Every structure is written in C-alpha cells, then in structure tokens.
C-alpha cells in the first residue's frame, strides 16, 4: 500500500508539463470563430508523436512503450491541464480498439504503424443519439469480395478528421464487430460538427459502401475494455483541468480588488474555492486509484473508472463554473480562456454517456456483488 506517486511518475509528469507549457498556445482560439486550424494543430501533434505518446500504451511486443495506466494519466493529465489541442484521445481509442478486437497480425501491423508515427487512428462507435449500446444501429456491414463494405453513419467521432484510419463499429449478422477503414476511402465522408469544445475536433462519419477490413479477433467485451480506458482518459483530463481552473481562480482572487480588499478575502469567494479544492482532491484520488486498478487488472477496475468518470466530470464542471464566477464578466468573454475549460468540462461529461449513466453502472456492479 503506497498512495504516493513514484519519482518516475513525477518525472514523467514534469517532463510533459514543461513540454506542453512550451508548445501549447491557446491564444489563437480566443478569437470568435477560431478552430484548431488556427493553432498549430498538425505541428503540435507531430511533436507529440515524436515524443512517443500515442504508443505509450502499446505493449512492447508491438513495439510500443508498454507503460502502465498510472504513467498514462501523468501525460493525459498534462494534456488536460493545458487543453492541448491534439488528437490523442482518438489515437488512444484506436489503439485500445485494435488491442481488444484485432488479430495478432492486425495488432502487429496497425499498432506498429501507430508506434512508427505514420498512422493516426480514431474510433467511430456512438450512434446519432449518443448511445453506445451493442449492437448499435448506425452502420451495417456486408461481405464483399476481398473484405466487407460499410454503410451508414456514426456520430460524435473524436479526432476522425485528422485520422489516417478509422475503426468503425458496425453490425454484421446482428452482432457488433469492428472494422478498419481508410479516412480517404471513396464513399467516406467526415463532417465536423460545431462541437462546443473547440480544442477538440468531433465529427459525423458517413459511409456509403466503404471498403473495410474486419478486425478478426474476438469482439466480445471489446467496447467495455475500450470504454473503461477512455473513462480513465477523460477522468484524468478532468481532474487536472479542475485543478487548473482552481489555480487560475485563486490567482485572480488574490489580485482583483473590490471594496478595498482582494476579492479572495471575502468568505463567499474563499468558501466556494475551498469546496472546489476538496472536490479536486477527491478527483485526484479517484483517477489515481482507477489508473492503478486498471494497471493491476484489479477486479474492481470497472467500478473504479466509472466512479472516476462520474465524479470527475461533475467536479470539473463545478470548478470551471466557479472559475467563471470568480472572474466576473471578463470570465464570460470569448477572449479569455475560462470558457475553454468550462466547455471541455461539459463536453467530457457527456462524451461517453452522462455521469448518471456511470452511476447506474456503479449500482449495477454493487448489485451483482451483493447477489
């Protein structure tokens, strides 16, 4: 039992911290109408790929770094703290999908591409209503000479626009299976949606008889495997983002003067920020415990990630809401960063199902344990 981060973990976090502080500039996003195209999106991603982050969770047998989930949250936390606009979420979702559903040959080939830095991935699985239930309705697969063809559409696909290949969940013979398609394949259309979190690209993916390769490993439990890890990613971003929002609010409260005192001297402000600090501490232990549980293959890992995603989503929302209030009207302008965090918080909370849906998972797990 040791609840502290090792020196290695801290060193990893610190190096990510220094790198991202230097490389991430949200300034260009602070003009109305700006998109990730206005920051050096591709340039930042290239540097991140050079750092090897997309291959962080790829096992060593496939050429990756084979780091564990505590290592992962060190880096993802820093990405969340800085709102780094880069398609890491899609890359990780793709890697885990291939790990969960690919054959050995496919893992070697696709994960090798990711590690080699010449393959970006994304995962298309949500339906138009934001649901993830199997088998799904959006896309159906039919056998075709030399492979399969996919037809239909998937929604809320993170990082599809910058991906080279997209993993698509589609219904084959009444079951959910996973396929790989080229983003540039004919019949495939990626349409960006006006996603509120402008540090992230989210798209609708439409397919019309698009040639696809079936991930031919077992698809059973692939989504719970991927989902649990994506919960961890979002929860880690949220914990770090909540701390960033708190730190900014505290700094501002020490400087902004009203009625002859810094506003941080007023209890209405102090007490609310104290409350956020408390939630922030809980968010930290939530994500660290979840990361550890996944790394260990602990039987409570699914419970731990669902708890973290639910709790941290709301802690992040509360922190960013309070952050805007502490800044006053300027905190409500486009030209400040406050709204970027608020929007990230809200979008993270809904992306994989609302916090209440994770709480439902928690209760179902407890009911099974009690039975």
């Amino acid at each position, binding site marked *: 039992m040791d609840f502290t981060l090792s020196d290695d973990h801290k060193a990893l976090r610190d190096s990510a911290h220094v790198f991202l502080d230097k490389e991430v500039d949200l300034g260009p996003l602070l003009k109305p109408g700006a998109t990730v195209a206005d920051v050096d999106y591709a340039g930042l991603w290239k540097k991140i790929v050079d750092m090897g982050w997309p291959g962080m969770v790829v096992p060593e047998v496939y050429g990756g770094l084979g780091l564990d989930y505590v290592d992962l949250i060190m880096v993802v936390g820093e990405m969340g703290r800085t709102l780094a606009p880069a398609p890491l979420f899609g890359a990780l979702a793709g890697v885990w999908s291939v790990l969960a559903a690919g054959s050995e040959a496919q893992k070697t080939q696709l994960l090798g591409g990711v590690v080699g830095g010449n393959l970006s991935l994304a995962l298309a699985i949500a339906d138009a209503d934001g649901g993830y239930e199997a088998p799904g309705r959006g896309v159906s697969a039919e056998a075709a000479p030399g492979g399969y063809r996919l037809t239909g559409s998937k929604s809320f696909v993170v990082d599809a626009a910058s991906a080279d290949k997209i993993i698509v969940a589609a219904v084959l013979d009444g079951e959910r299976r996973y396929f790989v398609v080229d983003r540039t394949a004919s019949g495939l259309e990626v349409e960006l949606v006006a996603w509120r979190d402008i540090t992230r690209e989210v798209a609708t993916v439409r397919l019309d008889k698009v040639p696809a390769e079936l991930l031919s490993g077992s698809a059973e439990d692939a989504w719970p495997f991927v989902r649990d890890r994506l919960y961890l990613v979002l929860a880690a971003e949220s914990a770090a983002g909540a701390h960033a929002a708190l730190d900014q609010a*505290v700094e501002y409260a020490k400087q902004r003067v009203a009625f002859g005192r810094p506003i941080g*001297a007023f209890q209405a402000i102090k007490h609310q920020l104290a409350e956020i600090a*408390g939630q922030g501490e809980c968010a930290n232990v939530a994500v660290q415990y979840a990361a550890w549980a996944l790394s260990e293959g602990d039987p409570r890992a699914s419970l731990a990630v669902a708890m973290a995603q*639910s709790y941290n989503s709301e802690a992040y929302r509360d922190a960013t809401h309070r952050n805007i209030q502490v800044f006053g009207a300027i905190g409500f302008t486009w030209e400040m960063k406050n709204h970027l965090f608020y929007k990230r918080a809200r979008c993270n909370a809904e992306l994989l199902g609302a916090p209440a849906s994770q709480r439902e998972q928690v209760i179902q797990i*407890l009911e099974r344990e009690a039975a």
Partner: protein
Amino acid sequence: MDFNFPAEDDPRRQDVRRWFEANPSPTYKQIAQRGFSAANWPAPWGIGADAEMMLIIEEEFARAGIRQPSAFNPIAVNQCGQSLLTWGTEAQRQELLPPALACEHKWCMLFSEPSGGSDVGGLRTQARRVGDHYIVNGQKIWNSSADEADIGVLIARTDNSVPKHQGLSQFIIDMKSPGITVRGIEDMTGEEHEYCEVFFEDVRVPADRLLGKEGDGWRITMEQLQTERQSMTKPGAVWGAGPTARELVNGLIQTGKIRQPLVRDEAARLYIEGELLRLLSLRNLSNKINGKPAGIEGNIGKMMASPHGQRMTDLAKRTQGVAGMVKDKDVLPLPAKEYGRFTDWDYAYWFSPATTLGVGTQEILKNTVAERVLGLPRDSDPSARMPFNQTTAPRAAA
C-alpha cells in the same frame, strides 16, 4: 503507487491476529503494553506503525470485535496524547501516558467557552501562576465526555497583556481537582452523554502540568485540532464512527429500495463519495505515521466527510418516509459491528447536525482550507493584534 490493502496472509497481519487469538479478551492495559493503543507512536508507547500497519491493526480489532482505544478514549489516544511526545517533559509522559493508553484514564478536551468555540483564541478562562501552582477560574462548555473524564486538556489564558493568541497555555489537569464542577448537557438527540459544561473555581493545578512553555498553548491546540480533523476524514456518518455508504447501499439493496430511480442515483453518488473519502483518509493516514503532528490536509478531509455523512444519513432516513419520524432503531439493516453509540441510522441521523459544528464548524474549516491550503487572504480580526486586556472581551466577561 500501490492501492493494494494488506493481504490476509500478510505476515504482519498474521502476527497481530495471533496476538488477538492468544489474548481473546484483552484488557486495554494489555493492548497498550503490546503497543496497539497508539500503534503509530514510537516505542515504548506504540510500535511506530506505518499507514499499512495501522490499517491492519484497525481491521484486526474489528475482526476480534474489540472497540479500539482510539474510539474509546479518543482525546488521549488520537487528539491530544501525542502532544506530550513533542511538547511534554519525560516526567509528564511517564505519569500520564501509561494510564491514558491503557484507557484507565479517560481524557477530555477543554477548549470551547460560552463566549465562543470558533474563536477559541478569545477565551477568557484564566490561569494565574501562584508559587508552584496555577489557579484556574472560568468556564468551558461543549466538552465531550467531561463527566466521565479523569484528565482534561485545558487551554487557558496566562497573560492578559499580550495579543489574544500569544497569552494562552495548555495544562493537563486532574478532573477530580477541588473546584471543578461538571454538568451534563442534554443534546437534541435527547441523550445526555455527548457533552458537558465545566466550571472552574480557584482550581489548583500543579505547575508541572503545564504543557510546553507559557504562551505555547495556541500552537499546541491547533496541532491537536489538525490531528483530530485528520482522523475525521473517515467515510462513515458521524465523523467516521457511524455507518458507511457501503453499508447504506447494501441496506438499500437488501430492502429493494435501491430500485427507486431517485434513490438509486443518490445512493450511487454517496457510494462514490464514500469510496473517495476512504482513499483520501488512507492517504492522509500515511502522513500521520510515527506520531508526527498532522498536516493541513485533514481539514479538507473533514470538510468533505462531515456533509457526506449528513447526506448519507439523510437518504437513509428519507427512504423510510413518515415511519422514520418515529424514534426507531430500524431505518435500514446494518451489519453487526462495533459502531460505538452509533449502532443505528436513526441515532446517526439525528446526531448529524453536530458533525459540521464540532471540531471546527464547516465555515471555519473552509476558512482554513482557503487560507492555509490555497493561500487566500486571512479574514480580518480587529482584536488579533491588540493586547487582550484592551479588547472588549475581558470587559464583557467582568
């Protein structure tokens, strides 16, 4: 990073368990002699247990069905006794600690006064040095277990002429001293064993019962309150002593009430909070090893844990509807275990308003977190810098 709890076959656990098996109904004296009373203290008092060992010991006490000394005699074992390790003299340790850890002497905390518990630095009870004694006059209030206590940890004013926090000193006093009158106060649960008021009329306290030096009282008291708060991060109702969210959810599952949609979501929320508080308290525990004074993080823990306990007992009660308004021990089933007085949800529920008052009100805790963790400006206290005898407090007392 390793969240694994000590396993069943952990040799240290086996060791503790063998001791409990060899001593099936140990006296607290035997427990103290084995070093299990305040296991985190250094030898000879404890065994210098780290966080993991503390957890093992706690679980093995529970397994043996024995109430831990820290629950039976919390002021001595948890909050104040360890101040003697750093501030006390060897003679004080030899005289006071063995009976405290053996639970032969129950201790109480004499801090709050009618004039204020939050602003305890503005207290008015006087201790005047006369030869080799101090003469104490004044009144304390809200003192838990003072009616059963042998020893009191008293903070009193030894110097009127300096600002309020500087003129305070701490004494370890005999509660049976002539001139002390203790009266029980009936609290809103209708029980008369929570707290008391204590009157001092020319009470003679030997000078060698002064802890530290004159004027150290404020620092020592603050250390003790941090330690106490840290121990209150535990995820149970009533400062960690009562039922937990795990038990709440189990009860709701057993009774089928978990199927009500609103109950379901709220129960999940509470369960998650409870689990996170459990992790937080274990993390804090590791900062408290070897009898070191607690850090500031205990404030965050208690700030989160007390309202959590209130919400939890509130849900337990609400699932009972109108029937829950009858004094009743059976709101929801609870597993048989040692909860001290809080063996049912009903008592825990009606007691719960006290949990955001005692050991620092919620407002004081938030102030502490904001000021000491976040570094926000301190509240202004016009009386903090002037000599105490020039503030309005002593005049009001006169």
